[in-house]
């Protein structure tokens, strides 16, 4: 389910079926790194949308967690931890963080959520059909990661 009025209504009436939260981590930077940051955000957003669509009934995709690339490491880590602990408090049992920013890999052990790092594929240079195939392949793998976690932890 998505973070909009229509789907939140469904969430509120069927909360017991929704135990998984998705958050995309999106960096913002300027000058030389701007283009790269945009590509990172775009790619993880596209994939999160697609996997949300396929696992619509058991997941809630939150608005993205955005941060300035220049933000102090500890600060953004603590900010994200505040989000994740709040979500656990709210009854979510599985948390998935999707990002293309390598920096989060270093924090993986400090996070109590599953961090999924997606290397950016330069989609802008591909034609439609090829692009769709690649995205489909990627989503398939993500689906497996999520459903495996459901199976092993339930």
């Amino acid at each position, binding site marked *: 389910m998505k973070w909009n009025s229509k789907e939140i209504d*469904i969430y509120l009436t*069927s909360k017991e*079926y*929704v135990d998984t939260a998705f958050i995309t981590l999106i960096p913002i930077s300027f000058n030389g790194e701007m283009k790269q940051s945009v590509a990172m955000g775009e790619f993880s957003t596209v994939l999160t949308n697609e996997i949300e*669509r*396929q*696992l*619509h*009934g*058991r997941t809630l995709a939150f608005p993205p967690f955005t941060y300035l690339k220049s933000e102090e490491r500890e600060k953004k880590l603590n900010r994200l931890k505040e989000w994740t602990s709040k979500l656990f408090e709210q009854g979510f049992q599985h948390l998935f963080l999707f990002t293309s920013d390598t920096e989060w890999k270093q924090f993986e052990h400090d996070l109590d959520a599953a961090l999924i790092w997606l290397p950016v594929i330069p989609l802008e240079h591909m034609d439609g059909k090829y692009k*769709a195939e690649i995205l489909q392949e990627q989503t398939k793998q993500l*689906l497996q990661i999520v*459903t495996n976690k*459901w199976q092993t932890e339930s």
Partner: protein
Amino acid sequence: MGTGGFMAAGMLMPMVRFAIDPILKTEAASDMVDIDMKVDDITTEPQMKKFKVHQVDGWYESDVEQAAFVFKNDKGDIVALSPVCKHLGCTVDWGTNPAYPDEFFCPCHAGRYYKDGVNVEGTPPLAPLDVYEMDIKDGKVFLGKPMPHPKA
């Protein structure tokens, strides 16, 4: 503009609104979409086919991706089922649960459907999968809107 002019504007306005406001236009007769699939390619094994549907929502136009499981049933009729689970809208897949290889399976809450799209009783879904309106022209498959299953 006097009172008369004001009243005339009041009568004219609704008509002008109908003329220009796409939200108030009635929808064109259901559009059938070419899903780029030949009748000869259809087997008894459900195949997932993705296609794009042009959607107009008020002023916002977009191409929405949709999918269908297309196959021939026991009678040899071509069927196109929507993969959207009738429980909470996840995407079901064919034969992915090793315990039930000849059923549609929903990974979210283990919902199951028989091959004809009817939900297996005792699993979360409360209704059969939707069935697409279909047309066959020149040996090619055209799909319209997903409609409630005849057994629903």
